[in-house]
C-alpha cells in the first residue's frame, strides 16, 4: 500500500499542491488533470525526486525517503520527456539503466530481449536510438520502466507518440501488469485511462478533486448531459448559453453534446455522462463556467 498523507508542495512561496491525501493498492490509477495542475509534481514526489514541503509519503507504513534505494528498487518510472543517448542502441541503453537499477548483468541479458519483444522492438535492438521515431522511443521508455519488474509503475503521459494500435496494445499490457502491482498513469488524455483505470484521481486548484471509480465520478453529471441537433446558424447563439462538450456534423446539421443544469427543454436528448464530460466540465474556463 502506497499512502500519500496530507502532502503539500511549494516552490518558493508558490504552492503547487495542497493537502493531498491518497491511497494506492494494486490496480491502475488514472491521474487526470490538465497541464500545469500538479500531476508531474505529485509524480516526482512519488518517485523521490522532490521532497514534500509538508506531509509524508509511505510505502507499507515506512516513509519512502527513509527507505531510499529499497523504495526506488520497487518503482518503475517513465517520465514525461524522458531522455536517451542518440548514439546508444536500445540494448546499450537498457543495459545502462539496468546497471542503475541494480539488476545483475546476467538478469539484464535475459530480461532486455524479452522486454524489447514485448514492445515490438526486437528487430531494432542494434539500431541507434537517434534514428528512432517518437513512438519507438516511447516504447523503449516503457521497456525501461518495466526492467526491474516494479511493484509500483508510474507513467507520466505514456502514450504520447504512440499510434492507435500501439495505444491499444499498451493499455492491454498495463491491464495485465496491474494485477499484482500499483500502476499510476498520469495523463490529460481521457481515453488513455477510461478503459483501464480502476480509479481516477482528478486534481483541481492544487487539491484532489476526486479519487473514485469512473462510474461514481460520472454519476455527478447524471441528468445534466444532453445532445441536440440544430442548424449551423443556431450554433453560435447556443454556445453563448451552454457548455458545449462536443460538436459533430450529421447530415447537414450539427449534433451538439452539452451540459445543462436547469431550464431543460423536451427536445433535448438526455445521454449518459462520460469521463470526458466530467473532465471538460471540471476544467472548463472560468468564463464558460458562468454559462453553466
Amino acid at each position, binding site marked *: 500500500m502506497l499512502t500519500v498523507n496530507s502532502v503539500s508542495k511549494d516552490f518558493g512561496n508558490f504552492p503547487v499542491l495542497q493537502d493531498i491525501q491518497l491511497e494506492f493498492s494494486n490496480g491502475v490509477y488514472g491521474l487526470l488533470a490538465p497541464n500545469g495542475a500538479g500531476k508531474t509534481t505529485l509524480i516526482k514526489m512519488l*518517485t*523521490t525526486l522532490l521532497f514534500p514541503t509538508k506531509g509524508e509519503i509511505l510505502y507499507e507504513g515506512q516513509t519512502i525517503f527513509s527507505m531510499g534505494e529499497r523504495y526506488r*528498487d520497487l518503482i518503475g518510472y517513465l517520465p514525461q520527456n524522458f531522455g536517451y543517448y542518440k548514439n546508444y542502441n536500445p540494448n546499450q541503453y537498457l543495459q545502462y539503466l539496468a546497471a542503475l537499477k541494480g539488476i545483475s548483468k546476467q538478469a539484464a541479458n535475459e530480461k532486455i530481449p524479452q522486454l524489447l519483444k514485448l514492445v515490438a522492438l526486437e528487430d531494432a535492438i542494434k539500431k541507434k536510438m537517434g534514428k528512432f521515431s517518437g513512438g519507438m522511443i516511447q516504447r523503449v521508455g516503457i521497456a525501461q520502466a518495466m526492467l526491474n519488474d516494479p511493484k509500483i509503475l508510474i507513467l507520466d503521459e505514456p502514450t504520447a507518440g504512440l499510434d492507435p494500435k500501439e495505444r491499444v496494445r499498451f493499455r492491454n499490457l498495463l491491464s495485465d501488469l496491474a494485477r499484482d502491482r500499483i500502476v499510476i498513469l498520469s495523463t490529460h488524455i481521457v481515453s488513455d485511462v477510461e478503459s483501464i483505470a480502476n480509479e481516477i484521481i482528478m486534481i483541481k486548484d492544487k487539491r484532489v478533486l476526486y479519487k473514485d471509480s469512473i462510474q461514481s465520478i460520472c454519476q455527478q453529471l447524471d441528468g445534466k448531459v444532453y445532445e441536440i441537433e440544430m442548424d449551423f446558424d443556431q450554433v453560435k447563439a447556443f454556445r453563448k448559453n451552454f457548455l458545449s462538450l462536443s460538436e459533430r456534423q450529421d447530415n447537414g446539421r450539427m449534433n451538439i453534446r452539452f451540459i445543462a443544469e436547469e431550464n431543460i427543454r423536451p427536445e433535448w436528448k438526455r445521454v449518459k455522462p462520460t469521463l470526458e464530460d466530467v473532465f471538460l466540465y471540471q476544467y472548463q474556463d472560468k468564463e464558460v463556467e458562468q454559462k453553466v
Partner: protein
Amino acid sequence: MRIIWQEMKKIFNPVMLLILVLINMLMYYIFIGFDISVFPNGRPATDHYHIGIEMVEKYGHELDEKEFKDFKEVLQQEIKKADEYIQSDKEFAELGITTYEEYREMKNEVVRDPVFSQLDSKIVFDIGVDLFWEIPAREDIIEDFEFVKERYGYGYIEQPTEDQERRIQEVVNTGAVNSIFPAYPVEDNFHSISKNITITILVSVLFMISPIFIRDYKNNMIGLQYTSKAGRSLFKKKVAAGALSAFLITTILLVVYYSIYATNDIGMFLASGINSFMGTVYWYDFTFLQLIILTIGLTYVLTLSLSLVAIYVSSICKNYIAIIGFQLPIFVLVCVLIFNRSLLSEAFLIYSSQLKVAVLYCVIIISPIIMLIWKKRREKNQDILFE
C-alpha cells in the same frame, strides 16, 4: 562498479575520443614537438650536451678533482688541435694568427677587425668547425667547476635569504654540486617539455570530463537516473567514474609523451644529481630520474584536481557556455602558475618559496574535494529539478 564502468563508457564515446586525438595532435604540433625535434637546440647547446655525455661515460655521474684535471687535459689537447687547424689555414696566416690563444684574443677585442670577423663567422657558423664550439663550451664547464664556491647558485638570486644561503652552502659542502648534469640544455628542455605535456594533458582531461553531468542534463536523463535504485548516490559514482577516467587519460598520455621524450636520448643523465655545478640549485637532492618521477606525480595531482573541479562545474552548470565560463579562468590561472615556475619541477628551484608551493598544492588538492563534498551533501536533501 558496473555503474562506474557504464559512466566511463559514456565518457569514452568514439566521437569524443576522435576529437581527443585531434586535440593532442594539434597540441603536439604547436607546443611539444619543438622540444623533441630541435633538441638540443643548435649550438653551443649541442656541444654542452655531447660533452656532458662524454663526461658521464668517462667519469661517471660525479666529477672529482682527479677527473677534473683529466678534463682540463682534454681541453689542452683540443686547443692543440685548434692550433694545428689555425696554422694550416691560409686565411688565419694572412691575418697573422698562429694559435688558438691569439684567435681568442682577437675575438674578445671590443673593436674587431672586419676581415677577422668575416673569417670567424665562416669558421664558426658557415663551416661549423667543432673545435671552435667545443673549446668555449669546455672552458665554461671548467670555469663553473673552478669557481663553484664563489658563484654557484648566486647567479639566480641577487640577495639570498638565510635559508637559500644555507642550502647553497650545503650543496657545495656535501659535494652534491660535483654532479655531472648539463642543465643547459637537458634540464631546460625537460622543464619546457614537462610544462607543455602537463598543459596538453589538462586540456585533454578537461575536454573529456567536463560533459560528465551536463551530458545527462542535456539528454534529459536526470529523471530516470535519480529514480533508479542508485538514486542520489549516482553523484558519488559519477565522481568516481570521472576521476578514474581522468587517471586513465593522464596515464595513457603520460606514457605516450614521455616515450616520445625518451627519444631525446637523455637516459645517461637519469642517475645524475640535479644540483650540478653545470646548472642550478634545488631545495632537494634529487637525481634527474627522481625529478622526472616527481614531475609526473605532480602532473597527476594537477590533472586529477582539475578533473574534480570539472566534475563539480559540470554538476552545477546547465549549458556548455557556462562550463567554459567557469573553467577557462581556472585553467588559465593554472597555466600561469605553471609558466611562472610555481607548480611543476621548477617549483623546487632555490628561488621558489617552498611555503608558496605547499600552500598552492593544498589549495589545488583540497578545494575540489570540499566543493564535491558540499555538493553531495546538498544534493542529498535537495529537490532534483531537471525541467
